[in-house]
């Protein structure tokens, strides 16, 4: 049997990789890709807790949370990409470092 | 003497049982043989799974050869030609010859191609279609696997196929392939929306996502309970396997040959196989979801009968797909998108909501009433949609390509309209 800790460590690693992508990517789309990985690691955690720590009666909380996480992830991606497209249209770049309009 | 007769009778009974339900008996026999060799239970299961899977996949691949022949033959007849008729009886071996040829063709990789996506695309395309076979129940005992999420699995596997198309477009380093690939994917994802929406209706009626459960629960074929959803599903599945009139993927007059221009040899062949197999699986899925699948008189006790029923139903659907393919002209892409987003999707939403409410309001044991009311609601929705389209749709300006021209012959001395000019009311 696979211990719970394996899933948690996998999720932590995936979260770290995603966060690394979000922090270091210059390209906004690349940052968004990192964000997707982070969201997935959250889902792994939710499902692992649901699977391993449900007691006597079946709890649907974990599954409902994952379903809602899917919805939120979809909303985040859609709006994020729309913002990127809009930014690209006005500034002709998707580079984070060049978006310094507020720098003064 | 009596003993011999007894033996012959038992043997015949065994043969009959085998013909009636080959898979279960083969399964038991193989399990017996393998456990005789000292394999443990898990290993036996794995070996049987591999055997079953391999036979289904290979069966699917070789069945495609027959499908290609069928399509060319039927297409020939539709277009008043003979179709393949040289190699073998009725040209039956033509696709085999084609297969040998395509196996020995050279692979041409275009310069600047993205190697990994380029080579992976055909595998993904055909694998995604083959993976569908796993969940189709061919009879009450003959099915790959009845996972409890079969219907969603179908859609998910379709997503892998879309990915294959995108990779083909991106990997080819060709503008035409790229445009065609993206158009194809835009088309596929668009038509997936009404498809998923009406897919909820069989799930609602049967209370399960498993394909075999859905087939088993159809005491009444769901096409009788939800005719409009069946129609939407049928149209969307034609669009999903990009057959005419939705064959923009292979719009030869616009996009060279679609996303697979740069492929040759068996890599192209794989796209071809995926295409043909896809319409066959679409027919099977439609028959399973809406036409009762393997259900029919005696199918529970004799599984092979169920297989025959399913084949007949699927063949009818498949022939309908072929008929539409060879007789209907192609849509333009904007017409196609409009048809989907402004007609099919709203219609599917309305049908879903209406069916859910109506079917809940009527007790499920009154079958005749259920069918009647569902039909009335469906027809009402259809009529309303038809009216709305006529009212809302912008008036089309028909270009004057067919203006009445002066006739070559002089007008008649006594025009026939003269008779019509007598007012019937004038007599009083």
């Amino acid at each position, binding site marked *: 049997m696979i211990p719970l800790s394996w899933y948690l460590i996998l999720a932590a690693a995936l979260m770290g990789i995603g966060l690394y992508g979000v922090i270091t990517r210059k390209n906004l789309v690349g940052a968004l890709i990192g964000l997707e990985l982070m969201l997935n690691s959250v889902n792994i955690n939710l499902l692992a807790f649901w699977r391993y720590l449900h007691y006597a009666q079946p709890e649907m909380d974990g599954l409902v949370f994952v379903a809602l996480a899917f919805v939120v992830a979809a909303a985040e991606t859609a709006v994020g*990409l729309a913002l990127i497209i809009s930014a690209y249209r006005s500034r002709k770049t998707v580079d984070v470092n060049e978006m310094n309009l507020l720098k003064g | 003497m009596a003993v011999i007769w007894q033996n012959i009778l038992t043997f015949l009974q065994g043969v009959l049982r085998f013909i009636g339900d080959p898979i279960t008996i083969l399964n038991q026999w193989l399990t017996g043989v393998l456990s005789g060799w000292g394999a443990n239970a898990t290993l036996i299961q794995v070996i049987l799974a591999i055997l079953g899977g391999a036979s289904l996949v290979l069966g699917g691949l070789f069945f495609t050869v027959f499908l290609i022949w069928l399509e060319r033959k039927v297409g020939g007849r539709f277009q008043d030609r003979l179709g393949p008729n040289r190699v073998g009886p009725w040209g039956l071996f033509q696709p085999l010859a084609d297969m040998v040829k395509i196996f020995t063709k050279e692979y*041409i990789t275009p*310069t600047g191609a993205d190697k990994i996506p380029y080579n992976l695309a055909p*595998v993904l395309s055909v694998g995604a279609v083959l993976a569908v076979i796993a969940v189709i129940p061919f009879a009450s005992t003959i099915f790959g696997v009845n996972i409890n999420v079969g219907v969603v699995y179908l859609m998910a596997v379709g997503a892998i196929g879309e990915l294959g198309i995108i990779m083909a477009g991106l990997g080819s380093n060709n503008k035409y392939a790229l445009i065609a690939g993206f158009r194809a994917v835009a088309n596929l994802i668009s038509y997936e929306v009404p498809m998923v929406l009406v897919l909820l209706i069989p799930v609602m009626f049967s209370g399960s996502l498993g394909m075999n459960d859905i087939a088993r629960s159809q005491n009444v074929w769901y096409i009788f309970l939800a005719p409009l959803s069946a129609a939407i599903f049928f149209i969307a599945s034609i669009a999903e396997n990009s057959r005419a009139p939705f064959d923009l993927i292979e719009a030869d007059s616009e996009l*060279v040959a679609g996303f697979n221009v740069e492929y040759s040899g068996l890599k192209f062949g794989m796209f071809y196989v995926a295409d043909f197999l896809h319409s066959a699986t679409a027919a099977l899925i439609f028959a399973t979801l809406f036409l009762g699948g393997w259900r029919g008189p005696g199918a529970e006790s004799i599984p092979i009968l169920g297989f025959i029923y399913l084949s007949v139903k699927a063949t009818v659907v498949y022939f309908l797909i072929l008929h539409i393919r060879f007789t209907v002209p192609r849509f333009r892409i904007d017409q196609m998108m409009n048809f989907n987003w402004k007609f099919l999707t709203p219609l599917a939403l309305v049908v879903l909501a209406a069916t859910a409410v109506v079917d809940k309001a009527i007790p499920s044991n009154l079958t005749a009433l259920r069918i009647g009311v569902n039909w009335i609601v469906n027809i009402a929705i259809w009529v309303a949609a038809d009216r709305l389209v006529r009212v809302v749709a912008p008036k089309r300006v028909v270009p004057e390509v067919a203006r009445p021209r002066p006739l070559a012959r002089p007008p008649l001395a006594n025009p026939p309209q003269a008779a019509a000019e007598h007012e019937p009311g004038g007599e009083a």
Partner: protein
Amino acid sequence: MFTDWIYLGIFLVIAFALPLAAITFAGVISPKKPNPIKDSIYECGIEPIGESRIQFKVQYYVYGLIFLVFDVETVLLFPWAVAYNQLTLFGVLEAVLFIAILAAALIYAWRKGALEWL
């Protein structure tokens, strides 16, 4: 239940491995005589101009977006559809409200002209 998934995994491996094997096998037995003309990109015999990874119009993204919204919606509607036979009329009406809100989204996109191809 879980054995079903193992079976499905095996089936998927076979379904993807067999075409791969066939393609590799055909690659071994087929001739390999590439030359620059043969390998050039097929654009109706005309020399390709510019980069092939061209820029696309926003309409693709908009269709993808609407598709995403409806796709995610089904995540919530599929469990509801499975439970349909055990629900009361009230439970069904809640889902109808859910569908109606999505229909409003579609109507917004329509009004906004986001569904036009051109």
